[in-house]
């Protein structure tokens, strides 16, 4: 595998072996999960896990908190749904189109956002996400309050029908796993190294000659692209694109997932997504109580697990995950 940076002379802390084992564990979990739980529920966890990882590409490595990340997730779910339903795209092209839409949108918005810092950055990303929400509500092809329903899952490459949940699961699992490996590679690339330098000390990174704004923009576009992939997968899987996925509450929820899991870790957001989705599922019967419990969990995390669940556990064990 090309994905396990070995321990270099820099002694990159606890990288190779423990991370390879974590990837094997993840692979095992993804492989057995649909036999232990309802496949569509697992698919939901995988989609949101990928979405949370995409947010953390920017938050964890660059320290930039996007409060409008649902824009790319939601817009791409519309893009995939529209492409599959109206244009009759096969799933792989629908997903490709979803990513393209997210990347282009991210490129434009990112160029306008990355010059802002801290809370201003968060607010500008939120403002753009609200524009996307309004667009999604008003545009003729998004179905307004109804969304786009009965999206056909289609057949992969026109050959393999995704009608059965297990076939669909196989596709989602493969796409998810490859995307996680890609995100991991980006995080531990020479590029990722520069991102962490910018996060640690931006003026110093500038004084070393790094064109900081371009790095921020690039990671913004990458993060949007992966969020778009997650949104596209979700639309194809659940045969639905709706306003929920572009709403600002969704942007907040994905921040919650990352914080619960641990933003200083690579794998943490997956745990966060699992926990939030599982909670929503378990507590669905209690209606509005879901949000109250979510709030309590979030508060508990802030108080007890400052670095998130995985971040705190890794700290205790002296691991870097």
């Amino acid at each position, binding site marked *: 595998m*090309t*994905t396990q*940076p*070995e321990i*270099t*002379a*820099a*002694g*990159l802390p606890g990288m190779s072996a423990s991370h390879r084992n974590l990837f094997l564990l993840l692979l095992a979990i993804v492989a057995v999960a649909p036999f232990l739980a309802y496949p569509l529920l697992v698919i939901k966890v995988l989609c949101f896990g990928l979405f949370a990882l995409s947010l953390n590409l920017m938050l964890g490595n660059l320290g930039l908190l996007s409060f409008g990340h649902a824009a790319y997730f939601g817009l791409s779910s519309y893009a995939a749904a529209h492409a599959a339903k109206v244009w009759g795209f096969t799933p792989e092209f629908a997903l490709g189109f979803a990513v393209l839409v997210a990347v282009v949108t991210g490129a434009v918005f990112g160029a306008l956002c990355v010059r802002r810092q801290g809370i201003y950055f968060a607010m500008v990303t939120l403002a753009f996400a609200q524009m996307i929400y309004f667009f999604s509500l008003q545009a003729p092809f998004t179905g307004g309050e109804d969304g786009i329903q009965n999206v056909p899952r289609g057949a992969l490459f026109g050959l393999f029908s995704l009608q059965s949940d297990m076939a669909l699961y196989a596709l989602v699992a493969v796409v998810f796993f490859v995307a996680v490996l*890609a995100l991991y*590679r*980006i995080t*531990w*690339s*020479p*590029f*990722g*190294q*520069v991102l*962490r*330098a910018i*996060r*640690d*000390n931006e*003026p*110093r*990174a*500038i*004084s*070393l*000659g*790094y*064109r*900081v704004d*371009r790095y921020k923009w*690039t990671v913004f576009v*990458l993060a949007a692209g992966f969020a778009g992939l997650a949104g596209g997968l979700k639309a194809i899987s659940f045969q639905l694109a709706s306003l929920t996925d572009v709403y600002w509450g969704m942007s907040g929820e994905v921040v919650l997932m990352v914080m619960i899991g641990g933003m200083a870790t690579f794998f943490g957001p997956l745990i966060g997504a699992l926990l939030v989705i599982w909670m929503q599922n378990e507590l669905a019967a209690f209606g509005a109580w879901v949000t109250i419990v979510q709030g309590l969990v979030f508060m508990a995390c802030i108080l007890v697990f400052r670095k998130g669940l995985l971040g705190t556990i890794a700290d205790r064990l002296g691991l870097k995950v």
Partner: protein
Amino acid sequence: MSDDIVLKATGLTKDFKGFRAVDAVNLNVQRGSVHALIGPNGAGKSTCFNLLTKFLTPSAGTITYDGRDITRLKPEVIARMGLVRSFQISAVFGSMTALENVRIALQRRRHGDSWDFWRSQKVLARLEDEAMDLLDQVGMTGFAREQASDLSYGRKRALEIATTLALDPKVLLLDEPMAGMTQEDVARITTLIARVAVGRTVLMVEHNLSVVATLCDRITVLARGAILAEGSYDEVSKDPQVINAYIGVPNG
């Protein structure tokens, strides 16, 4: 020889909402010299420094570097031209090891920009021998694998110098390199700066006058945003205006 000016500021002026922090400063830094910018608190040294390093944009005046007008250039661009600054508060990348700190600078110099997000950072391993050499130059070999945020203040400054040297700068701009240092650290870093200044030009803002006396060939004294005196340490230290500005009373 006096016409070999590497960094030149002409009529450099900076206004902050009606307050003129730097007022028509003309500064000539000779190639190969160690030049100090000194002055009492509020004299405009730091503003002047930030103008020269492009972290602030001048209200008026021009800056040339090696005969090229850099007045409108961005800080990262002049860094790439060999004009590299340090910071008053030690500027290290806290979450990285000392070695990685130096390596990130080497990475910029050797690879230019790193857009290669699809590659493993294993490719950076080949920079590590050079990074170790640089750490060795500042006496930090034993701390290569320590996380930068855990280093003592003096070691952070030494690490910062190693990181700056990794870019092989033509002109080093040091913003109060001795600020907040213990006595032993001051001696160590003074020796270090003297060593790295060979073959380079250094411009520093510094409060510690004994350091300035030891290191610097030429001193510019600023007071209230304008140049008060310029010359060697002996010359400016005898200047009654300088004494007045520092102590407040003319001293025969």
